[in-house]
């Protein structure tokens, strides 16, 4: 542990708590920081400058922006890769490592790549590895190992992430001088304002920049604006919150901590500010070279001296503000290189002059000199003689800090996402906003207001404009803001290519001026093509420091105007986001029947069926086969009970109820007697089968129609859609959840029910097969349906959902002396297969019409209309392609084929198996399959290709396989 030699005395507005020391480690060494420090600021306080190695050449890199806006500070934590060291706070015991190196961060074994850089031209990967075929597969691991970023730790503990919706009249993104002013104006107009700030405190540039000679102005404005915002109850402030996008109709994804906020704003004020731009010159990536604002942030936010001896490169008055801050922090300023010929008189400039700092007008940084470890140790400067051209360097300055303050580019990502655009503005010498969509109002330095008072006035204007856009009572005309996109803030050509290169245009991707020029020479001269081919602006910084230089170099190389070159488009997200944020809490609705817990108590293995859970069988997994067999036997020989609550239940009521069913289903219902059930088969408009069930007529005007578990919602919505067009006098109600249901099935089911049903005559003549009754069971009002999906005497009993569990309990109690057994979906599937009943979606597909499923019997041909009828009629003019048949296997010892095993004839696929199982009742394999029409006669043989490519012989059998006369279910 070491004392922090670069820590300054207390600064006004600093974010650190000097009374709380926090120990962490970097590269295996322990350091002390202060509470409130970021990883980078704590390391800087100890003079640690190398944070990472560059992507391609493995050059050492240090902090560039101290604002989380560059890839140089990406580091590895134990549980998380690619963490921004300049914005991530230190915590006790935090273990931090560098990324992208072999050996050690300080002495990277892969640094030889720097020396062979000329053999890694732009487009290297595209050109080098595309042939021979498969070459990339061999090279990729090698390249990835050297060009990857951090490593994912698969043992990382799961954390709780969630999402929340948010709502505001006006969302203001960015709480700098313009954003604060805009928020205040909108709130004062009576609107709810959400103020979103990426940094932990409000103020933006007011928290670090120097706007006047003594530095008082920024502090004063910050105090005024921030305290007014805090006092305004209509403003909700979110700090440490990053707005990741500006999506359709002002939908804002905002990440704060582990929560993704999905905010809908009626108006959005963008006060996202601008990003200070780097100077392009040789070795401009050396640790120690940073933005002027980065040095100011280190000083003001963290009380850290960014170096011992500094040089400032500037082209505007802000650079002199940086120099003043450095001087005040006790840093020697070796000189100021001003790209301008004659720096004009201005408060800060004159204040620097008064402090006897050497100023070199019309001088450019020509080459940063680096130590053996690649860290800044000095600078050669050269007189500028033309557009990026210099005479030989004639000034050498020793320095360990180089601050760049030559201008800004608007942080226009959010504007781009919303469909706005920027264009190069010749007077401002940077990008300026060309268009913004309705409801999105740019303000402040994003919109060219680089002067502090101009930015504040522009923020007020934007707040008033937002209020006016929402029809809030006017508080006066929005002021016309003067002085936007003024010249003097941005130098038009801060690019000084060096014959020996390493003059980086893009730090993330290690792109030098020559790389860009070569790409243009190869024909990639449109800015968007150039970006993709060279990868400029495609790294984690997303072109924040690259786009402007890229446009300038392109303009020069192509001879086109900058206004025409334009800027590359930014796309969301604004910054890296975690899968946890995208996944959030994760909502997966599950529907449970009223008897669900009884199934669990009985040891059921549950399976999903749509959103429902249903018992597959009762018993442990290792007894699966035996359990299913026993359940089947109980139903065939005795009595069983299955929960059918998940079946859809629709009440169709009204004078047109029968007419409506006639139209929705294939069968005829007009003459169906009250007290009777009839099969229903539903097709879609193409004639394909989409659902089935039974329609129970309880009244001339009332049918209770069942639907399949997965199909109920679709059936309901389809019915409503059709009747929205037909306007029949009928009401359709989805009563699925209102009723719990069971099927009590087996030869002794009547006996069980008789113990409980007090007011329904259960005798066969009084309550025949396909009869339906209303009555009570165990005192519970019930709808009783004598239907036979499993082919035994049986009753479906539907009761109010709240009484479902009581019904289940009563039936099990009544059946206990007879040995009643609950059975699950697996047993039911086998039972129905023995009866040859189809399951829609398993034995049918999206092209199966009723004739294809051998269900022509379910079609009422004389009806004027039913959904799908016309399509079926058209299809039946052509010969059938396939037909569903029952089959058994010729070799009784053969195991059952699986669903979707193919029916093969003369090497061609002519059909497939849809269901197959060994029937314990029949002691043989039975199944359903699609076969060609000429192979459908009972006794016809066909071949099935089973697992492993073996062919087995099957023989057509007319279903039902069991009890063909239906004596069991109708008895």
């Amino acid at each position, binding site marked *: 542990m070491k004392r922090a030699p670069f820590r300054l005395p207390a600064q006004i507005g600093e974010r650190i708590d000097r009374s709380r020391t926090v120990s962490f480690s970097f590269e295996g060494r322990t350091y002390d920081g202060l509470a409130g420090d970021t990883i980078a600021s704590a390391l800087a306080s100890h003079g640690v400058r190398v944070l990472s190695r560059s992507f391609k050449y493995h050059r050492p890199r240090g902090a560039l922006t101290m604002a989380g806006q560059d890839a140089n500070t990406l580091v590895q934590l134990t549980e998380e890769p690619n963490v921004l060291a300049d914005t991530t706070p230190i915590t006790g015991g935090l273990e931090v490592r560098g990324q992208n190196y072999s050996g050690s961060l300080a002495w990277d074994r892969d640094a030889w790549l720097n020396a062979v850089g000329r053999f890694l031209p732009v487009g290297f990967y595209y050109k080098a590895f595309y042939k021979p075929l498969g070459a990339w597969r061999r090279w990729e691991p090698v390249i990835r190992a050297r060009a990857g970023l951090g490593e994912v730790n698969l043992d990382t503990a799961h954390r709780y992430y969630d*999402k929340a919706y*948010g709502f505001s009249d006006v969302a203001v993104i960015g709480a700098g001088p313009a954003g604060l002013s805009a928020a205040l104006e909108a709130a004062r107009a009576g609107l709810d304002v959400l103020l979103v700030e990426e940094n932990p405190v409000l103020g933006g540039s007011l928290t670090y920049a120097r706007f006047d000679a003594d530095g008082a102005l920024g502090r004063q404005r910050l105090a005024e604006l921030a305290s007014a915002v805090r006092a305004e109850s209509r403003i909700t402030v979110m700090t440490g919150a990053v707005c990741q996008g500006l999506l359709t109709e002002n939908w804002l994804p905002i990440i704060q901590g582990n929560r993704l906020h999905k905010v809908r704003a009626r108006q959005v004020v963008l006060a996202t500010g601008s990003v200070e731009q780097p100077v392009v010159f040789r070795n401009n990536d050396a640790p120690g070279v940073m933005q002027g604002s980065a040095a100011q942030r280190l000083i003001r936010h963290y009380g850290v001296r960014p170096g011992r001896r500094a040089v400032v490169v500037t082209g505007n008055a802000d650079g002199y503000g940086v120099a003043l801050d450095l001087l005040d922090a006790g840093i020697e300023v070796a000189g100021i290189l001003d790209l301008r010929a004659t720096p004009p008189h201005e408060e800060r400039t004159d204040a620097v002059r008064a402090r006897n700092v050497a100023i070199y007008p019309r001088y450019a940084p020509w080459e940063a000199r680096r130590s053996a470890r690649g860290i800044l140790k000095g600078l050669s400067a050269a007189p500028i003689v033309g557009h990026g051209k210099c005479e030989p360097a004639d000034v050498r300055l020793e320095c360990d800090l180089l601050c760049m303050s030559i201008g800004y580019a608007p942080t226009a990502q959010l504007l781009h996402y919303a469909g706005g655009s920027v264009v190069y503005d010749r007077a401002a010498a940077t990008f300026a906003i060309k268009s913004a969509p309705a409801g999105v109002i740019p303000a402040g330095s994003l919109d060219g207001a680089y002067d502090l008072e101009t930015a504040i006035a522009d923020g007020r204007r934007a707040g008033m404009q937002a209020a006016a856009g929402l029809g809030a009572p006017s508080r006066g005309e929005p002021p016309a803001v003067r002085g936007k996109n003024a010249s003097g803030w941005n130098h038009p050509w801060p690019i000084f290519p060096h014959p020996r290169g390493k003059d980086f245009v893009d730090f993330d991707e290690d792109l030098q001026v020559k790389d860009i020029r070569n790409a243009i020479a190869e024909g990639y001269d449109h800015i968007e093509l150039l970006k993709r081919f060279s990868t400029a602006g495609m790294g984690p910084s997303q072109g924040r420091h690259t786009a402007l230089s890229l446009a300038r170099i392109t303009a020069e190389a192509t001879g086109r105007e900058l206004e025409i070159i334009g800027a590359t488009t930014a796309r969301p997200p604004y910054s890296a986001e975690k899968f946890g944020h995208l996944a959030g809490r994760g*909502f*997966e609705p599950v529907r449970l029947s*009223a008897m669900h817990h009884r199934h669990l108590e009985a040891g059921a293995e549950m399976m999903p069926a749509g959103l429902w859970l249903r018992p597959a069988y009762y018993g442990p997994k290792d007894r699966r086969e035996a359990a299913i067999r026993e359940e089947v036997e109980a139903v065939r020989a005795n009595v069983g009970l299955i929960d059918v609550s998940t079946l859809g239940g629709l009440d169709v009521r009204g004078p047109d109820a029968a007419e409506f069913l006639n139209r929705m289903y294939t069968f005829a219902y007009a003459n169906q007697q009250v007290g009777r059930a009839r099969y229903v088969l539903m097709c879609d408009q193409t004639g394909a089968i989409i659902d089935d069930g039974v329609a129970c007529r309880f009244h001339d*005007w009332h049918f209770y129609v069942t639907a399949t578990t997965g199909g109920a919602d679709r059936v309901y919505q389809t019915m409503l859609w059709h009747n929205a067009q037909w306007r029949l006098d009928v009401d359709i109600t989805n009563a699925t*959840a209102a009723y719990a249901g069971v099927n009590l099935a087996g030869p002794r089911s009547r006996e069980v029910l008789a113990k409980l049903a007090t007011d329904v005559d259960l005798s066969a003549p009084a309550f025949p097969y396909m009869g339906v009754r209303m009555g009570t069971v165990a005192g519970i009002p019930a709808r009783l349906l004598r239907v036979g999906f499993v082919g035994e005497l049986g009753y479906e009993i539907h009761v109010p959902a*709240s009484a479902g569990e009581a019904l289940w309990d009563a039936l099990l109690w009544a059946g206990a002396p007879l040995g009643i057994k609950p059975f699950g979906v697996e047993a039911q599937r086998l039972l129905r297969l023995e009866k040859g009943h189809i399951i829609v979606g398993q034995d049918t597909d999206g092209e199966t019409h009723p004739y294809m499923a051998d269900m022509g019997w379910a079609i009422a041909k004389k009806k004027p209309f039913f959904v799908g009828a016309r399509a079926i009629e058209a299809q039946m003019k052509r010969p059938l392609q396939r037909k569903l048949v029952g089959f058994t296997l010729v070799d009784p010892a053969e195991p059952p084929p699986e669903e979707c095993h193919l029916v093969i004839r003369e090497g061609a696929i002519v059909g497939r198996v849809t269901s197959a199982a060994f029937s314990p009742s029949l002691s043989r394999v039975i199944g359903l399959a699609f076969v060609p029409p000429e192979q459908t006669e009972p006794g016809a043989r066909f071949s099935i290709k089973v697992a492993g490519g073996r062919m087995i012989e099957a023989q057509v059998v007319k279903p039902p396989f069991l009890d063909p006369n239906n004596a069991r279910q109708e008895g």
Partner: protein
Amino acid sequence: MRTLDPAQFARRSFVYRRLVGHGAVFADMGGGVVAEHFGAAEAEAVSATRLGLADLSPLPRIGFKGRGALAWLSGQGVRGLAEDNRADRQTDGTRAARLAPTEALILSDLTATSRIFERLTTTWRLETASQCYLLPRGDSHYWLHISGEHAAAMFAKLCGVDLRPDRFAAGAIAQTSIARSNAIVIRSDQGSTLGFDLLGDSASADYMWGCLLDAMAEFGGRPVGRAALMRLADGASR
């Protein structure tokens, strides 16, 4: 108060096992048992002003649907129903909610003393109530109540509709998706305490209960009984 076992009753709340798990003490409200409190009614009333979750599923409610539903109800003396997605309090304490021009829902108050539910059930007949169809809302829908000052903030984690009290007035209704499950939200303050009734697919009750408890955790929300809500409601009338 006598402690009751909900499993002794034919009609059981869709979340009664959850309630038993939280240590509920139940009361018979005539036909269904309601979680009255969870051991400390006094403290629950305080919790309920911050964030409470109550199960009202056993209390009476009924729905009617069809082009003639509103007219028939009006003929039965039900007042209001003039505006879609609004609930109006009736003189007997019940509330009548218009969910659509063709649908209404009537909810009991916490005392479940109104006789309107029996009356409507016995009066309604398929043949005579023209284009009006009864809906068994007591079984198709769970009924939960979320009370307290943090209720809107909690809902913001589950629901894309703005339920903040200054934007979602008393009696307002949102039929929307809550935690990806369809539900009806009705602003129904108990006395001066912000409150929402939440009704949805009864088969999803257990799922919704879990989602709500999870979303409530950060606010210190907890299950509360009917007694706590009664205290809040009485607080206003005094």
